[in-house]
């Protein structure tokens, strides 16, 4: 049986101080009462120390499988605690460092008393506040005496990797049709209006409200999920998501700033478009190799985009640089979602040029001034502030929406 040297808890330290103080008083004001108080405190400390020494021996902890999670939701990180000793055990605390949960990074969960040879599954449901890839390694088991005066800790090495994806919302619909119908081409062939064409364009995931007659039953049985037919439509075949990652433009709040917001937007877009038959190109800056570029069919590239969004950090690349570096990506008839934190003249000019070329530009601008770290100030800053649209000429249209704190679906709808 291993012994673990216990340390006093907060109340234990207070009791130690009181025991020393009352002992000192007894040495000076010697009388039965002071002696009784000093003896009582010291007796409590002594008994607690002895009982805390073996409080965590004979216990084992195992990590159960868990999935990755999304910011803003809760995730279960179950553990299995087993009592291999012959005697029952008191309740203990399992502690693990989870930087994605809280600021001081440790979360505690209580495990109830265990009978001899009993094991118990601890369902640890934690809220997720930070995205990223995390390596979880150590799990601490904290036990102590019955009165919580001394605590003993035991460490278990249980490595695992966890990916927390950025928050995204499930959107029922994003208007993907282009405003200027005449500008829509597909391999030189103008596309028809949604729903009116006879040609099957492709298959996509079923969305609420889709008619049952459009369900492709064979494909659904094969894929084991319901998919519907997509007809030729005035639909966009190529969508580009451009994510601004300029560090200078990021707000002060570590968890709730404009950068995180546009990342969530990008994740929401990617997630929604995964159910739509189109190509997605994701462009953003990165701190290492000068740029992040992912392209492919929406369904296949969505997961990779989410993975990149989970780990992306702000760097020095601005939107204008990204536009310039990836100018060839923006084809006529494609849709560009520009998620930016800044609004420079160069950027506006380049967006205007893209609009001239036939690219439908939808810009969502989230400046840091609208995401103050102070919650109260944020309330004042919230609300829709549409800077309106500006025309480079009467055929170009760049819609720009500036908002904070509003529903993502509405925001994306506004840009349409």
């Amino acid at each position, binding site marked *: 049986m291993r012994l673990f040297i216990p340390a006093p808890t907060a109340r234990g330290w207070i009791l130690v101080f009181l025991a020393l103080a009352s002992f000192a008083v007894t040495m000076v004001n010697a009388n039965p009462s002071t002696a009784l108080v000093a003896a009582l405190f010291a007796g409590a400390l002594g008994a607690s120390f002895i009982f805390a020494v073996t409080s965590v021996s004979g216990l084992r902890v195992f990590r159960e499988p868990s999935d990755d999670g999304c910011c803003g939701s809760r995730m279960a990180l179950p553990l299995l605690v087993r009592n291999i000793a012959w005697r029952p055990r008191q309740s203990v605390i399992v502690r693990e460092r989870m930087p994605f949960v809280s600021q001081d990074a440790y979360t*505690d969960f209580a495990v109830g008393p265990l009978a001899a040879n009993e094991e118990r599954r601890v369902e640890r449901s934690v809220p997720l506040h930070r995205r990223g890839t995390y390596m979880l390694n150590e799990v601490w088991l904290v036990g102590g005496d019955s009165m*919580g005066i001394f605590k003993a800790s035991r460490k278990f090495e249980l490595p695992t990797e966890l990916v927390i994806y950025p928050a995204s919302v499930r959107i029922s619909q994003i208007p993907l049709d282009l405003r200027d119908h005449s500008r829509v081409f597909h391999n030189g062939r103008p596309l028809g209006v949604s729903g009116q064409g006879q040609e099957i364009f492709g298959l996509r995931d079923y969305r609420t409200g889709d008619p049952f007659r459009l369900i492709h039953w064979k494909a659904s049985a094969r894929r084991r999920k319901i998919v519907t037919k997509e007809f030729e439509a005035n639909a966009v075949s190529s969508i580009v998501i451009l994510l601004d990652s300029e560090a200078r433009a990021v707000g002060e709040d570590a968890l709730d700033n404009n950068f995180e917001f546009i990342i969530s937007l990008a994740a929401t877009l990617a997630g929604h478009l995964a159910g739509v038959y189109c190509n997605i190109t994701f462009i953003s800056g990165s701190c290492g190799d000068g740029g992040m570029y992912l392209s492919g069919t929406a369904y296949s590239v969505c997961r990779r985009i989410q993975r990149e969004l989970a780990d992306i950090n702000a760097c020095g690349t601005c939107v204008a640089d990204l536009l310039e570096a990836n100018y060839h990506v923006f084809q006529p008839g494609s849709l560009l979602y520009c998620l930016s934190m800044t609004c420079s003249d160069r950027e506006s000019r380049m967006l205007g040029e893209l609009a001239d070329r036939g690219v439908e530009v939808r810009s969502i601008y989230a400046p840091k001034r609208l995401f103050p770290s102070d919650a109260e100030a944020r309330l004042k800053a919230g609300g829709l502030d549409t800077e309106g649209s500006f025309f480079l000429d009467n055929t170009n249209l760049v819609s720009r929406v500036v908002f904070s704190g509003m529903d993502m679906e509405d925001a994306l709808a506004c840009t349409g």
Partner: protein
Amino acid sequence: MYGLSSRPEYARAILLHMLYCLMYSLSIMAALWFHGDPVVTLVAVSLALPVALLPLLKFFRREITRSTMQIVFPVAAGAWLIHRFSERIPSDRFLIESLALAGYAFGFTLYKKDRGFFMLVCAVMLVYGGVYPRGIFIMLMPFMALLGAMIFYLSRTDALSRWSQENPGNIGGSRYSWCYLLPQLLLMFVFTVGLYALLPGEDATSHGFVASDFTSKGNLDPSGLSDWFETSRVISDPTGRRQASGQNPSAVSEHSQMPVSALTAEKGFSLDGSGSSTPGDELVFKVRCDSKLYWLAALYDEYNGDSWKTSGEIKGQVFESSWDTQKLYIFIRQEFEIRKWMSKSLFCAFMPSFCTANNYPFKFMDQSFHGIRLGDKGFVPNLPFIYHVVSLVPFSGLPATDSGQLWWESLDRGHYLKLPEGRISSRLHDKAAEVTAGAASDMDKAVRIRDYLRSSFSYTLTPEKRLPPDAEGADFMIFELRSGHCEYFACAMAVLARLAGLPSRVATGFSPGNFNLISREFEVYEYHAHAWTQIFIEGKGWLTFDATPQSAVPSRTTPRGIGMLKDPFGDEWRIRTPETAQRTQRQASLYLTRSLDNNLLEHVRNSQNNHSSAMDSLLTKIPADGLELKNTVLGIREKMLGDKSALGPAVNSFKRNMKAFFAAITSALKRLFRFLTGMEGVALLLAAAAAYPVYIIARSFADAARRTVSRRRCENLFDDAISHLKSSPEECVKVCYSAIRNMLELAGYPNSRKMELFDYGASLSKVSMQLSKNTLAVFHIYSRMSYSTSNIDTTDSEEALQRALLVRSELDNTGK
């Protein structure tokens, strides 16, 4: 609200809050009861209940209401502090009163941090209360200890987790945890008692950090409450007169005559079997004295064979003190508080030298060397009646040149050797010679006689026979009665001592009484009325010899339990004589009447435990004249006790007590080592070593018995299954299922991991595939019966039974 997300959490928080409030009120009582302002104390204690209930009220859950209350209490505490400060009350008192009020500010929320501060204030008040010893404190300590343990237990997981985390939830209270809490409490009790016995219990030479007032009563007795309130009023009363209202003597009112007592000196006492002690439980008087002595009422020196009287000669003797005589004695100061008049005697230790009473003129007292009485011309003073006496007790280590001066009486020793002619039997003579044969000294003779009487006879208040008219008392008691009450023993002791050539006389009064550790007073009750013998020993003076079996002389140290561990007097006064006990003799260093130089004084201070050598050193100095002596004594007292700052004595006290503490630990460890290496210790260790194998054997027997019972139960189940096979297939399947579960548990394959049934059956494949298959088959039938709508017929029951039998045979084959 309060960050509590569920109803069980909220209920637990409320329960904890109430316990905290109860603890707080007890700590206020421990700190302020009979110490602080009575009104504030009572108000603060009674506030605990509404504070405990307020969080249950809806309107109180609003933040603004709570915040307002959290401001009100500190403000009220501050106002009270200013008011008390202006009254010139000791600062620690009004500070703790203000703290008690202000602390309630933490009692209006259910937040963990606030509760922590609440508990901290409780602990501070508890430590403070210990500095001022009162009975209430000792009474409350066990409750507070248990309550504190319960609070800590219920909030254990909060203490183990981090502050910033969500409450992990209440896990305490489960049956599994009790088996840890109770042993821990038991171990805590053992440690507390052990450490308490090692810690020093008294210090008479230093005020400590604060000058503790040992005169406060501090009980829950309602009659004492009026004293508490009265004290506050008396302080502001310009006359300053103290009255004990509500206290009437038990037998008489304060203005009536004395009751007739059986112990009046004029009457003497006779051995007629009526018993000498009044069988009552009332408090007669209290004594504050540093020595444990017998409290004398009257002396009897003439014996006529059946009764003792005080002769005229002895009454007329007067002790004239002088420098030469005083240097032979220790001055023992006593403060008496008479609570009930038993007689006109004012009790005191022998030999009284000086008596004074606050409100009673000395001229109305009759003082002699053997006692003090209220004169016939005086009035009966009110109760409680307080008077001070200084008694002289001889030094026990006097050199021979000085010891002769201890006999100052005009009567010669022969007066105290007289026995009635023709009344003392020869067998009594022989007995005296037999008992004292081989005694080395007079002291040895006296001790032998005393121990003989103590060990050979039994005590009874109602002897079987009355003294026959022509019989002699001591002879009758020793050879006929073989038992008696204290007067018999005193008489026998005196007679045997006189026969052995030792001057002796009989004394009556009260035995030392019960010593109250808290108030540092002897509490003498009616049942302490007693008779004993005084014997003159050359070189030591008149000493007290109590021949009564000591089990019949009650002298407890209260409060019970704690008193047993902290008895400052021990049993030395019974084994030696009260006058020669070390604690009495060392009073000499505190009441010096000789001129000493500083070196010798230091020597005396450092060798207080070795008092005989210090006394020898003292006696080498020649006493100076009166003025020089007075200056020297004053200087000594100034050095020892007159240090104006509390720090000097406090530091000395700290050092001294630390030495005593470590000495006590060393002594305890030595005693433990001696015990362990002695017969008893070895026997104990062997018994402990043997206990484990006995436990193993007993456990194996218990397991075997359990297995036998389980096996029989399985057999019965099979019989039951067979009987239900055709008549009730469902019952048969149920029984087969139970039988299989029992057999698997008996074989050591229980479902310890609480697996789902089929998973459990599948897990048995590790033991045997066939076993697993058969088990699963029965589980399948059972599940179908329990959860599906299909009926179970005899085919199913037959298969279940068959499979169960196969499982049994398989387990039997594996030896399980």
